[in-house]
């Protein structure tokens, strides 16, 4: 593979993991716009640890742990709010994280940090495949069942004994951990982190990939992130009109396939070659 393809592949992998981070909370029906904040925690966490002399795997693991601990602590107050309030609370969290980093001279403030250790495409790909496998596995368990049930009807699920709050906190924390992982991989791939990169747009796009791909199956975020990371590349011919086209494509797509591209009935049709009921 060419260096260019590997580079795009690595970015795609980071996007896929970020999309799964968004998926974990979305699967339980809540929109988390704090992905970028957790990615920043992961990226800076791993950067600081490796710059302090830790080996790369350990520092990535440490960063993921940091992101999940913060995620766990944040999830309790944040999940008290619902719907838009929760979304804005996560957004606010993310902005606070980035603003704090920008205020810390020890973290390089606006100049960013150079990260010791470079991570190439292949290890990132293996980690990403691991994440996909993990999420597919989780979705196949009763935990995944509960997530979908909570998204469809939280009170209905509670009637059957589902401790909705616990499930939501768990999902949020796993999402935070995945975002932290995405951030740590990003930091090591580019050997550099800059807080400004972890802005609202990053979170918004993670969510966008997931919703465009579809929430119904754990493969939706993968499809969404892959398609919509590569689509602007394919639209390169249209040059400056590319993103205009892209916006229009999103609108049309949502009109035609409002449940996302990759739905359960889509898979059903694919496997049975006939329309589902």
């Amino acid at each position, binding site marked *: 593979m060419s260096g260019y393809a590997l580079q795009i592949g690595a970015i795609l992998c980071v996007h896929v993991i970020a999309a799964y981070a968004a998926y974990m909370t979305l699967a339980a029906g809540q929109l988390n716009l704090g992905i970028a904040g957790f990615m920043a925690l992961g990226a800076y966490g791993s950067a600081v640890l490796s710059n302090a002399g830790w080996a790369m795997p350990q520092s990535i693991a440490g960063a993921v742990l940091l992101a999940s601990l913060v995620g766990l602590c944040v999830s309790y107050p944040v999940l008290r709010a619902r719907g838009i309030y929760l979304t804005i609370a996560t957004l606010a969290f993310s902005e606070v994280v980035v603003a704090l980093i920008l205020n810390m001279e020890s973290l390089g403030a606006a100049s960013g940090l150079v990260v010791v250790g470079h991570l190439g495409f292949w290890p990132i790909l293996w980690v990403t495949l691991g994440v996909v496998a993990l999420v597919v*596995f989780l979705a*196949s*368990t*009763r*935990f995944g*069942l*509960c997530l*979908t*049930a909570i*998204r*469809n*009807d939280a*009170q*209905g*699920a*509670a*009637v*059957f*004994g*589902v*401790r*909705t709050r616990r499930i939501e906190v768990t999902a949020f924390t796993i999402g935070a951990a995945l975002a932290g992982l995405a951030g740590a991989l990003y930091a090591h791939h580019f050997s550099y982190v800059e807080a400004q990169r972890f802005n609202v747009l990053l979170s918004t796009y993670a969510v966008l990939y997931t919703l465009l791909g579809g*929430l*119904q199956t754990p493969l939706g975020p993968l499809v969404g992130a892959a398609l919509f990371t590569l689509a602007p590349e394919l639209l390169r011919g249209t040059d400056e009109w590319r993103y205009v086209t892209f916006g229009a494509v999103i609108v049309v797509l949502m009109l035609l396939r409002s449940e996302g591209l990759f739905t*359960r*009935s889509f898979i*059903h049709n694919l496997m049975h070659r006939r329309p*589902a*009921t």
Partner: protein
Amino acid sequence: MKPKLFLHGVTLAFGGLTVIDSLDIQVMPGSRTGLIGPNGAGKTTVFNLISGVYRPNAGEILLDDEAIDAVPLDRRVRLGIGRTFQNLRMMKHLTVLENIMLGQHTHVGLWQRMLVPLNSPFNRAGLTETRAAAQLMGLSAHADLLADGLPYGVQKRIEIARALVTRPRLLLLDEPAAGLNSSERDELLSILLTQLPKEMSVLIVEHDVAFVSSLCDHVVALNFGRKIAEGRAEAVCSHPAVIEAYLGKDDDAADADAGVPAPALDETIVPQESDQKSERAPGAERGTHAA
């Protein structure tokens, strides 16, 4: 004999409106108790009180002589209270089998709940139980389809199957026959008569008086959140207060619904024995929880 369930002087008010007023209901162990009343009488609200959706403003709810008012919604199912919903609570992104499996949530262990794939051999017991419940309710043909979009009658049976796999000792059925055609209804009746364990106590809200009479040994009639009659089915159905409540229903129903014109066409008193009703009932989705 101690009652399985005892609602003692239960009162519930929303804002200034008293929806349930000092209600006493007893469900004896192993009994089949029916709860009837016109639209807006508060039948579903009673279910919501028992299953923990609402907390009473006064009075108490005893299960096996123990007050359960403080037990949160998600713990009541552990006490052996299973229920169905008048307005279907289908998880539309889950298949029929998965919807039923949701009912097993409380009696699988923590690790199994989190880390065992549902279709793996480790979940064989759960799958077997689910399949059995599906078969019992005649759902085997639909097992792997998404619940969303299945006919109304099928969704009703999924609800009951799901309530059954919670292994309830007290089963609350909220209008199980509403919207079913006559053959579906007869089939359901025979399942409920023959397949439910004898020791299971059942409380049924139903408009179909014939259905209630065939199934229940004890009937409670409600109007405006108050008990107006109680006793054997035939006796209650011929009780003057009950007849009055039903015959004057047009105005009363509208009033009792706090000015909301009930769209629920399937909630007429006299069961409609037409086959058209096997399709999704109009208004079933609109979510006007009868208060």
